[in-house]
């Protein structure tokens, strides 16, 4: 039942004086759309509001496996990764640099489309700080792209007619200055 991600979620269990306490720490089990099952440490699971609400509002037993039909396995891995780090840094006094380094690595190998998918997931799962971070990351990735790229990425069509399009472009000509420098 458990996948390799199970170990990631409970990796700190082995060492430390609080190991005994952590052994007793409860686990919450979720199943993603592709059938993968994840065991989350309670403190990490509670970072995810949709999970928190599910179990706490109706006092559902932790033995229940919560289904997450809108989440893919790879997305869950990433969310757990981020939330675990967030919880870890909560206890640190000056985690600014560490957080920045972690964030840079986190998005490093993700395509913009994957980032968007993850953003959608973070929104669905209701993890505000992850959502804010991902929105910022997407905007960073697209800010120097041209309009066509953006349309394709978000799956929108150019629904302007000739006139309107020219008018829109003419509305803030100052923003289009120095454009060449921005694009490359």
């Amino acid at each position, binding site marked *: 039942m458990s996948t390799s991600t199970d170990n990631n979620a409970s990796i700190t269990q082995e060492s430390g004086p609080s190991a005994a306490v952590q052994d007793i720490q409860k686990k919450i089990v979720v199943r993603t759309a592709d059938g993968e099952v994840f065991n989350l440490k309670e403190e990490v699971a509670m970072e995810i509001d949709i999970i928190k609400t599910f179990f706490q509002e109706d006092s559902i037993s932790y033995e229940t496996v919560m289904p997450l039909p*809108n989440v893919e396995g790879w997305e869950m891995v990433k969310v757990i990764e981020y939330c675990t780090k967030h919880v870890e840094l909560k206890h640190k006094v000056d985690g600014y640099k560490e957080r920045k380094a972690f964030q840079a690595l986190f998005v490093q190998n993700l395509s913009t489309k994957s980032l968007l998918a993850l953003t959608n997931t973070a929104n669905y799962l209701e993890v505000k700080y992850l959502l804010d971070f991902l929105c910022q990351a997407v905007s960073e990735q697209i800010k120097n792209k041209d309009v066509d790229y953006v349309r*394709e990425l978000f799956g929108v069509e*150019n629904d*302007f007619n000739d006139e309107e399009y020219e008018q829109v472009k003419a509305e803030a000509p100052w923003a289009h200055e120095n454009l060449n420098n921005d694009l490359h």
Partner: protein
Amino acid sequence: MEGLVMLRQLIGQLQEFVQFHGSPPQPHLQQQQLPLLNHHHHHHHRRWCSSIVDDSSVDDYYSFMMAAGKSGSVRMLEPSKPPPSKRSRKERARGKSSGTTNTTEPMEQHIWKDFPEDLYEAVIARLPIATFFRFRSVCRKWNSLLDSESFSQQCAEIPQANPWFYTITHENVNSGAMYDPSLKKWHHPTISSLPTKLIVLPVASAGGLVCFLDIGNRNFYMCNPLNQSFKELPARSVKVWSRIAVGMTLNGSSTSGGYKIMWVGCDGEYEVYDSLRNSWTSPGSMPSSVKLPLSLNFRSQAVTIDSTLYYMRSDPEGIVSYDMVTGVWKQFIIPTPLHLADHTLAECGGRIMLVGLLSKNAATCVCIWELQKMTLLWKEVDRMPNIWCLEFYGKHVRMTCLGNKGLLMLSLRSRQMNRLVTYNVSSREWLKVPGCVVPHGRKRQWIACGTSFHPCLTAVA
């Protein structure tokens, strides 16, 4: 398979695009408007411009402009144009075409299936301002974001970035030059609704709106330089033609909760404008504890901390403050540091600062002081790096301080020289500012006055 489908799609879109426009759009076409505009006014002001500027007895921009006014080159106020019409809600309802992809690849479907509207907005709200304006041409929905409540909400939630600066240059008094310190770029917007026949100067700002006052101190105008939202304030009930100091506060955390504008004159007269009621009121008269006449320091912009405005004055030297909520005036006697000139108030994180030129013998330096609230004394906390100060040695330097909250822009000039620097009060960083040059121009413009403002795409006047 998926790659081929996407490629086909892309080609289709490109074909459509080319059909619409023939060739890729030329952004430069629009810029040709600007030099024409500059030219007309440039020629007009040229004559008296050079004669007055060299006169070192003119102590600040205001006097310079008043002299210009008296020479008769300022004409009657042109009726302001109506604000640009907003896009209809119907156009906004035209949704994005989701599922343009024909592929059955699960990931593609998964992305577009439930992508909620506010997620687009959350991403777009975080884009740099210039990029936002560029992406308005993506589709109709994106173009109408400035009218969207939810988008406004998103913009309001994002932590404030560095302020921008809206400045007026000597060379072109009728349109502004905006500076973006994070990208170190100058922009030259044309705010079509601002009266062009009359000179208006930015005097205060809050929440993304800039308050302009015409040179005769008669009328106020509110404007968001980014989205052209514009409003002329109703005429004041008190007809005061002498010089006034102006302050602005927000009722809440953004302009949507309303704002207040206050003017105060040297004789102790003052009025407050409430944007929610769209009217001026005279809340009362100054308490007798405040010594009149108020020799207000007009070079210094009023500082706002929460709902209190702080004005700098001399005779006695110090600060007078007014709380917009309680209507209470307070007076603080604070001796000004010696050998100080061109000083202005600023603020950072609730701390009141003083910026000024310190001149001793032939050496001049820009200094920063912080107000010690317990002792009501100024304490020097920083100085401009020595190397930069050396440039002013032996020269008669004047300084104008633009912006007074967190990030300051200092315009330093002497007969031959014109230097622009920014100073970040909390990081204590001094940075050089690239010269302000109009598009297709070469000559560096001379920054006369201006204010900082928080770039807020959705603030409405």
